């Protein structure tokens, strides 16, 4: 397995088991690699749009967020955060797990809940994609 594939494997292995992407220093320990080499690999993965980095750390390992967001996802194992409502659903898809999503209306702030159980989504509401698909990566944090 090539270096970047190994790094990606560990990033997603940790993320899918713990609910949040690992720190670069954790990856260096897990991979027994120098931190600078880990950061260089993460940057290559980010350039290939497989991760989003911020100040040398993983901000997004889609669909998971490294920081709290308005899209809290609870599984039977842990609670974590999606980057947006689509990613919150994506966590259920990636884990193949039932989830409860706690969020709020983007307009009025009213609390909203969405569930995925047995591969079926339940809840009310509409998802709005503010940017056209071709612009998603121009400002991925806003997207």
């Amino acid at each position: 397995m090539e270096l970047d594939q190994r790094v990606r494997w560990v990033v997603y292995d940790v993320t899918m088991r713990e609910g949040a992407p690992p720190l670069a220093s954790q990856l260096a320990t897990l991979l027994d690699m120098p931190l600078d080499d880990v950061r260089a690999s993460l940057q290559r993965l980010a350039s290939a749009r497989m991760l989003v980095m911020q100040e040398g750390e993983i901000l997004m390992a889609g669909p998971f967020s490294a920081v709290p967001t308005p899209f809290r996802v609870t599984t039977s194992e842990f609670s974590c955060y999606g980057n947006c409502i689509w990613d919150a659903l994506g966590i259920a898809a990636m884990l193949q797990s039932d989830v409860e999503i706690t969020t709020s209306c983007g307009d009025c702030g009213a609390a909203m809940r969405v569930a995925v159980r047995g591969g079926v989504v339940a809840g009310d509401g509409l998802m709005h994609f503010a940017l056209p698909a071709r612009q998603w990566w121009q400002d991925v944090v806003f997207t």
Partner: protein
Amino acid sequence: MLLFRSEEHVDRWCATWRLPKGAVLSLKQGWDLARVWYGEDRRDPAWRRRTLEETEAVFAELGFTSESWNLR
């Protein structure tokens, strides 16, 4: 991508932030997209991002044909 209580709330949010209205999906449509997009195991060394053409095919298969989904 945000969740809204109704189309009326989407419209008000767009007006508030002076943004053009984008694609609006039901939760079912969004779940269908999430399953395709994120359903693969990204630990797999063979995993790669979809090409533009493959992404277009996903959108077409899901019936997402409006300008919001045009990648070119």
